[in-house]
C-alpha cells in the first residue's frame, strides 16, 4: 500500500537514487528536540537476529570495539570506550536510541562513536566510503530491534 503510493508520486525516481523505496534517505532524517528519531527509517520491522550480526561485524557496526553487552558475552573482547548497553532500552525510549544510531555525534557533542547513518563527507574519507553510510537504513532498524530486547 505504502509502496504503491510512493511509486505514483513523482518524487519517487529522485528518491530511489539515494535510498531504497520507502526509506528515509540519509541526510533527510528528522530529529526531535532530544536528538531522537521517532519514525522508522524503513517502515519495515527490524530483525533482531540480523541486528546482532550487524553489531558484531567489524565492517558494519563494530559495536563491540567499544561496548559491552552481557547477553552477548560469547562475542570475544568487548571494549570499554562507551557505556555498557545492558538495560539500554529501560534507560531510553526507542526514538532516542534510533537517534544515537543514526548520528551519535548529534546526540552527544564530540563523541567518538561513529555516526552510522550519515553520508560520509568529512575530510580525507577514503574514496570507497565517500558519500556512503556505515549501516543501511534497515540495518539501523535491525540493530535497534535487538537493543530493544536489552531491558532491565
Amino acid at each position, binding site marked *: 500500500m505504502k509502496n504503491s503510493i510512493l511509486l505514483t508520486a513523482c518524487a519517487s525516481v529522485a528518491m530511489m537514487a539515494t535510498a531504497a523505496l520507502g526509506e528515509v534517505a540519509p541526510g533527510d532524517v528528522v530529529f526531535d528536540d*532530544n*536528538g*531522537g528519531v521517532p519514525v522508522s527509517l524503513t517502515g519495515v520491522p527490524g530483525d533482531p537476529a540480523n541486528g546482532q550480526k550487524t553489531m558484531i561485524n567489524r565492517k558494519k557496526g563494530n559495536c*563491540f*570495539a*567499544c561496548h559491552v553487552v552481557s547477553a552477548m558475552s560469547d562475542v*570475544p*573482547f*568487548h*571494549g*570499554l*570506550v562507551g557505556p555498557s548497553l545492558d538495560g539500554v532500552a529501560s*534507560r*531510553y*525510549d526507542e526514538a*532516542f536510541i534510533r537517534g544515537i544510531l543514526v548520528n551519535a*555525534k548529534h*546526540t*552527544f*557533542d*564530540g*563523541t*567518538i562513536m*561513529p*555516526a552510522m547513518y550519515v553520508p*560520509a563527507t*568529512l*575530510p*580525507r*574519507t*577514503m*574514496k570507497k*566510503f565517500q558519500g*556512503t553510510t*556505515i549501516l543501511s537504513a534497515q540495518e539501523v532498524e535491525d540493530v535497534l530491534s535487538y537493543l530493544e530486547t536489552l531491558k532491565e
Partner: protein
Amino acid sequence: MKNITLSAVIATGFALVGTAALAEGQPPAEIKPLVIDGINIVAEAQAPSHMDIPAIYSGWEFRAEETQVLQLDDFDNPGMLEVDAAREAFNTVDGAAGKSCASCHEGGPEEFKGLAAVLPRWNPDQNALYTMEDYINYCRTARMQAEAWPWGKTQLNGMVGLLNLQSRGEIRNVAIDGPVADLWQQGHDIYYVKQGQLGMSCSSCHEENYGVRIRAEILSQGQTTGFPVYRLKNAHLNSVENRFKGCMKNMRAEPYKPGGPEFHALELYVASRGNGLGIEGPSVRN
C-alpha cells in the same frame, strides 16, 4: 508513560553530553620501571605545557606483560634482527660515489647518540623539517649517489632503528618554536581534526581514551618514543608513518602521502607530545 521516559532521557542525555566533551584517558593500570639491558628509560613524565593532560606515558606501560618482557633484553627483542641487518648496511658500499655510511661516519652509528631525541627538527641547509629518514636518504642520494630507500620499508626502518638505538634513554626534547612553529601548528590541527568515515581524530583515541580497552587492545597515548616498533602483528619494524597510516585506515581516512608535508608536520607534533619521555626504540608492541 512515554512522557516519563522522555524526561528521564533529557536528564541523562544532558549528563552524557557533558562527559563526551570532557573525556580524558586513564593512567596505565600499573606503572612499571622500563629498564632495557641496564639502561633506565623514563616511561612516565609530566606532560609538556602545550598539552591538556597531566602526564605522559610510554606505550610500553599499556601493553600486556607478555609483550612488555620482549623489550627488556635485546636478545629477546625480535626487532634487533633488522637492526643487525642495518649495521651491516652501514658498512656496505653502495652507489656511484663508492661509499658506505661508514666512509663518512668513521665513528660508526654511535656518532648519532642523542640525535633521535631532537628529531624531527628544522634543517637550515635544506630549508625543511627533517626526520631521521630524511637524513639517511639525503646521505644516500647526495653523498653516496645511491638510490633513496623507499619510505616505510625494511631498509629505511632498520637504519632508523639502528640510529635511534644510539639514543636509548636520552630524553626526547624536540623544538616546537622558531622555524618549525607553523609546521607544529599544522601538525596540531591534523591531530585534532575529525576525519574519515568514522569521524574520529587522533585525540579521540589517544587523548580522550588512553588506558581504555578498545576491543582487545588497551589504547596508549600514541607516543612515538618507541619507534621503530617491532609489531608482533606483522613481524617487522614499523616506522612512525607506518603506524599513522594504519590508524588513519582504521578511521577510514585516506592516509597522507608517504614522506609528505602532512605526515612530517604530524610526526613533529606527536613527537612534541612526548617531550620528557625517554627514547626506547626499537620497541616491541602487538
